[in-house]
């Protein structure tokens, strides 16, 4: 109740008080941080002011008529109902205004569509409900490529009001996209399941991620910083929970980060070879479950709605092959995705082992990354 009172107070204050209170209430688009976004902002303001000017003239005449030409003031009606000159004029003038608007709009559009070679190229894939970023090697050397998933980092406790909401509530991810400042970055955008849309307002980039299509966009950020956006195409249940975060960093820092990523990718591959214990797998699996599975199957594996419960279900407690098949290959025609291509062998092994040993499913069974590797390649 306390929060309600505070909010209501802020609301009343905001409505009654002037500029200082209103400063918190964003009214307009931000100019953003790229040249394109500045051009778009300029276009937006130009059209807005043209509309305001037209509105002032048209509504001005209208309100003047409403106040002056009313019966209660004894105004007698005129009887004109045609004037060809006026009618031609107010067809031609708006047309001319439209031409004036169309010229800068066309120029900006041509600029945006200029997708010449970039210095960094990232493949962006939309999944229900996370983004995958794969850094392509410009020389085509696959060993230098790496990629990862970017998941919502806001906790379910914050969403369900059991915890105070963080400043970047719903706009925070575990692994942001990292790009170097001052370099031309090109994104190749696609999707794995349904249509998503990748949007960062500060770059003025919004492009749909469509299964079977690859859309190209480019941007160049000159100011280091963290830029936040969201998925903007309804993509199912957690459409509101798949933010986009881009960190623009100086070039040296970017190179260092990329080198670390390549090393980490190598380590990940080695994890498959390692000998794992049940406890290690369960511990790792708990984290994987929270990021990839809890959204549908619940924090405690109890499912809900169309999503099956994992507690005591025979697939999870008995039939190991079926369990592997569902997690690795998905269930076609349902929201259950094929995680075989999304998670590493270690993560797959960990999450399956976790599910078989959590919430009272005490099977004491485990599956190792090596077994997953063999299963995938059989």
């Amino acid at each position: 109740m306390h929060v309600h009172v505070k909010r209501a107070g802020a609301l009343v204050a905001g409505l009654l008080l002037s500029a200082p209170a209103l400063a918190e209430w964003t009214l307009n688009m931000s100019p953003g941080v790229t040249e394109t976004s500045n051009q778009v902002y300029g276009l937006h303001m130009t059209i807005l002011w043209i509309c305001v000017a037209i509105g002032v003239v048209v509504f001005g005449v209208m309100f003047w008529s409403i106040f002056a030409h009313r019966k209660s003031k004894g105004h007698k009606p005129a009887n004109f109902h045609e004037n060809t000159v006026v009618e031609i004029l107010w067809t031609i003038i708006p047309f001319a205004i439209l031409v004036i608007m169309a010229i800068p709009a066309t120029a900006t559009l041509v600029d945006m569509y200029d997708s010449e070679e970039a210095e960094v190229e990232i493949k962006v894939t939309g999944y229900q409900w996370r983004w995958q970023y794969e850094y392509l090697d410009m020389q085509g050397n696959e060993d230098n490529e790496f990629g990862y998933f970017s998941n919502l980092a806001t906790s379910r406790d914050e969403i369900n009001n059991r915890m105070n909401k963080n400043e970047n509530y719903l706009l925070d991810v575990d692994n942001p996209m990292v790009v170097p400042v001052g370099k031309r970055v090109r994104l190749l955008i696609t999707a794995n399941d349904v249509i998503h849309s990748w949007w960062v307002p500060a770059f003025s980039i919004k492009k749909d991620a469509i299964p079977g299509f690859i859309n190209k966009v480019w941007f160049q950020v000159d100011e280091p910083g963290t830029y936040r956006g969201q998925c903007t195409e309804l993509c199912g249940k957690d459409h509101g929970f798949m933010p986009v975060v881009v960190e623009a960093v100086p070039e040296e820092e970017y190179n260092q980060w990329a080198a670390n990523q390549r090393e980490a990718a190598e380590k990940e591959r080695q994890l498959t070879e390692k000998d794992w214990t049940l406890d290690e797998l369960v511990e790792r699996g708990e984290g994987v479950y929270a990021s990839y599975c809890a959204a549908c199957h619940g924090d405690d594996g109890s499912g809900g709605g169309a999503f099956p419960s994992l507690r005591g279900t025979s697939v999870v407690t008995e039939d190991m092959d079926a369990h592997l098949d569902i997690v690795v290959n998905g269930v076609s025609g349902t929201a259950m995705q094929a995680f075989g291509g999304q998670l590493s062998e270690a993560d797959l092994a960990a999450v399956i082992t976790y599910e078989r040993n959590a919430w009272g499913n005490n099977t004491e069974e485990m599956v190792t990354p090596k077994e997953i590797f063999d299963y995938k390649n059989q």
Partner: protein
Amino acid sequence: MSAVADTHAQDHHHGPAKGITRWLLTTNHKDIGTMYLIFSFTMFLLGGSMAMVIRAELFQPGLQIVQPEFFNQMTTMHGLIMVFGAVMPAFVGLANWMLPLMVGAPDMALPRMNNWSFWLLPAAFLMLVSTLFMEGGAPNFGWTFYAPLSTTYGPPSTTFFIFAVHIMGISSIMGAINVIATILNLRAPGMTLMKMPMFVWTWLITAFLLIAVMPVLAGVVTMMLMDINFGTSFFDAAGGGDPVLFQHVFWFFGHPEVYIMILPAFGVVSHIIPAFARKPLFGYASMVYAVGAIALLSFVVWAHHMFTVGIPIFGQLFFMYATMLIAVPTGVKVFNWVATMFRGSMTFETPMLFSVAFVILFTIGGFSGLMLAIAPADFQYHDTYFVVAHFHYVLVPGAIFGIFAAAYYWLPKWTGTMYDETLGKTHFWLSFVGMNLAFFPMHFLGLAGMPRRIPDYALQFADFNMVSSIGAFMFGATQLLFLFIVVKCARGNGEKASAKPWDGAEGLEWTVPSPAPYHTFETPPEVK
């Protein structure tokens, strides 16, 4: 044929049948019009209560009242019910009541088909609403039902949704055929096309739009049906299909559809403004040509809903220019309405209040439409609350205020009783304030970066969302007052209405007594 004509001749001078059969079997345009209007208002309240659920969830950040699955069902059903259940049937109801009275015809041209077009609707919506109680829930993919979210990933109830859309499409097409047949064949002697009242003109053009695009909608849902149940891959990329094709076909229907929802309102306002300004409509001919131009342009602008899907630059430019062009005929209409008010002798009874608000607020919706047409700027606006603000500004104070204006304007003719003017004005002002409070802040939210169709949002959007929810609750609650006003009026509780209660009103409908007798214009009137 002669047998039918004979039966008709026998009960010619009888009043309506008694009891439920009057409504089930009626072929009388006034009864069918009344049923359409009651159905539409029922759907308006149902779709509106879903909007209340949406606004209640968005009152504060965090999930409080509903879960995301159900939230998505609410946004989807709200859109579908308001478009197909509230706005479209309301205009068909007005057409049923008023077109025969305005052109001096005894009834609609095809009265039995008229009965069937109406009774299909409750069946379709019963089926649509029943999906809420099915396993897996109601459709949850937005009223635009983009594939593959609605096909491969849709809930099991999607097939029922498709069937419901087919039925309401058949109903709309039959209604449109009836309107065209009535207007082209049953006009009173002397009423040439260019002497027809504006409401008749706008409905004639709307009916052609309906016949052109409802089959396209039927086509796209049939392709979905095949993808879901019969293993085809029209929209499934994995099977060689194309998810973007869905959007092209859908919006080829969808864009004319938005004009279907607004053109009859243009007609209504073109009657009410001259009536209360006591001055003839300015530029009748250019008004007719403007409506025709808008209708034609509506077929070549569909991809402006798809600027972010990655269409080639020349496509992008074509659809941007074509969309901007719509501002010209729309501007002409607004200028003509203002010129009609100019140097009139105005009074501001409830129908006029709603019509003046229509002109102002619809124009604001038009301005944001023009902004959305600018493709590079649309990359920022697309699928944000700016779009939600835009289409609610053209649909609520556009279509819905147009319907309210029409209802208040013609209620005396329908019921023979004047509505309560004080209550009518109260309804207007509360709706006006509530509606602006609900939808104006959405412009700011969109520009600040809030995507549409999300059940929860980042903290910087909290304040305006709360304002918007308060406005929405106010607007929603106010509509119960409208119900009260109409019921009061229909029960004859008020001043008796004369045949022509508005001194500036023109048209054949005011030459028959109030309430309009069960059968009117059995002998056609002579027009000048």
